[in-house]
């Protein structure tokens, strides 16, 4: 789609900075790791931003059978370019179906057909509860964020939820300022009871992929670092979260991006570096 582009940020990993063919940025590692998590999944509801590129990479690599569902109304989208927005015309041309948003949210999502809801977040807590509404008080926000969009109902009705976001003291917080999308609430046991009582279809968050590593959720419903990206350190992980990190033993190291994964990101999916900067 356009000229190959060097990695947008300083290369990390077990390669020297002078080796552009295999060097990769933190953002690229995050997108690749998130895409790989979709192996074996069938129907994925694609959120705006980082999920968009991760899901499209998955479709071209580990999950060719993946059906992309966009809240704008496209089912089985086969975008010929990376859509900047989730309402881009490229998700329409060649899609299996284009339906009204009423049908999409009622029949596809609330009807239980979505295996994975892929979300981004401004803030997340240790139980995977997500804030994308405000920083500060709702009535007098310090920062007004976009709000739910479809995230709230996706978190409740998708069979499971994947999250991709950059990790920082501001985003990985002890207490989120506003709960836009429910995760494991105050812990796995209470969350399971409430989900069953209230008839939620979803089992909640199962994966969080950041620029430093991959987290899954342990039996208590809390995030656990299962894999550290090459070049990232446990110290960096601890410095960028607002709670005491749980770390798997043994801790895995995320396999580095393959040349093909990097080529797809740089040449095909994000030639302008909109997501990887």
């Amino acid at each position, binding site marked *: 789609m356009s000229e190959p582009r060097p990695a947008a940020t300083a290369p990390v990993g077990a390669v020297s900075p002078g080796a552009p063919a295999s060097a990769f940025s933190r953002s690229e590692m995050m997108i690749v790791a998130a895409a790989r998590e979709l192996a074996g999944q069938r129907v994925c509801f694609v959120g*705006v*931003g980082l999920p968009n590129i991760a899901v499209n990479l998955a479709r071209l690599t580990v999950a060719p059978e993946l059906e992309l569902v966009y*809240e*704008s*109304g*496209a089912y089985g989208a086969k975008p010929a370019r990376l*859509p*900047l*927005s*989730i*309402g*881009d*015309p490229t998700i*329409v*041309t*060649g899609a299996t179906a*284009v*339906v*009204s*948003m*009423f049908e999409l*949210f*009622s029949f596809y*999502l*609330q009807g239980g057909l979505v295996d994975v809801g892929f979300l981004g977040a401004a803030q997340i807590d240790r139980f995977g509860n997500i804030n994308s*509404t405000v920083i500060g008080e*709702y009535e007098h*926000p*310090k*920062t*007004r*964020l*976009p*709000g*739910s*969009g*479809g*995230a*709230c*109902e996706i978190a*409740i*009705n998708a069979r499971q939820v994947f999250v991709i976001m950059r990790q920082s003291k501001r985003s990985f917080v002890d207490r989120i300022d*506003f*709960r*836009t*999308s*429910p995760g494991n*609430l105050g812990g796995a046991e209470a969350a399971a009871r*409430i989900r069953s009582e*209230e*008839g*939620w*279809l979803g089992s909640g968050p199962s994966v969080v992929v950041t620029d430093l590593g991959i987290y899954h959720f342990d039996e208590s419903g809390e995030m656990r670092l299962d894999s550290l990206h090459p070049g990232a350190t446990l110290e960096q992980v601890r410095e960028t979260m607002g709670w005491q990190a749980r770390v798997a033993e043994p801790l895995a190291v995320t396999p580095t991006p393959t040349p093909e994964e990097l080529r797809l990101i740089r040449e095909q999916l994000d030639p302008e570096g*909109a997501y990887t900067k």
Partner: protein
Amino acid sequence: MSKVKSMRDAVAANVHDGDVVAIEGFTHLICFAAGHEIIRQRKRDLTLARLTPDLIYDQMVAAGVARKLVFSWLGNPGVGGLHAIRRRVEDADPAPLELEEYSHFGMVGRYTAGASNLPFFPLRSYFETDLPKANPLIRPIKSPYGDETVYAVPPLKPDVTVVHAQRADADGNTQMWGLLGCQKEAAFAAERVIVVVEELVDEAVIRADPNRTVFPGLIVDAVVVEPFGAHPSYVQGAYDRDNRFYRDWDAIAREAATTQAWLDEWVYGVSGRSEYVDKLGAERVASLKPSGEAPSGSVDYGVYK
């Protein structure tokens, strides 16, 4: 009887100070031409409803036409925030802006209830979130058939809904393709409907493909023919989304002064959409042409005598 009117006349006749206005279209088919005419006519105290306020409501809020926003996702899609709206919300600059916030499904449900003359729309959302606290109009209700609780949202019935579409006939029978958003629901829910089209067609064109009709002229008050009226949003098959402008707006809207200068130049400074398109220039317009054609197959409805 033809309902074809100029944008100026359609807005003057159908949009009044204090109205609830919905210019719908999810990324696709957002009628910026109508929004700009509302700004030029200096309407005031509007309640603006849209799932995604997008740049159009950022511009309208910056121009001072709105007192309140009803919405579900407040951002510049793929780019970042809506700065003019954020100034009003975060700093009350130059005045506060009232917000009434839902999720996408909640907004779609509100239009659906409005269009269907129902007192509420039930949905499985909002459980264990702070949204019902932020907006007390989102309320839990018990199922009359069991113990289940779901959430309800109230009907939304705009005074006027504006729908941009590929084509309509002079009576307002309207056809569109590509992303359909919730224009059908928003139109049926509204007291008055303005349809803005890329192309005015004969009734025979509509009747040749009745499955593509989203709503009939029965509910339409005015038909405006305004090619390129959705720019910088897009029209499937006609022109692409102007992503460059969506990125440029991020810089323009960061300061009140640059925002007003843009409004002066591109909204108050032109008489209407055709002058805006001229100003945009042939090169920019040509750059937004789709890179190729992808016609649908045709179907045979059959003749039954």
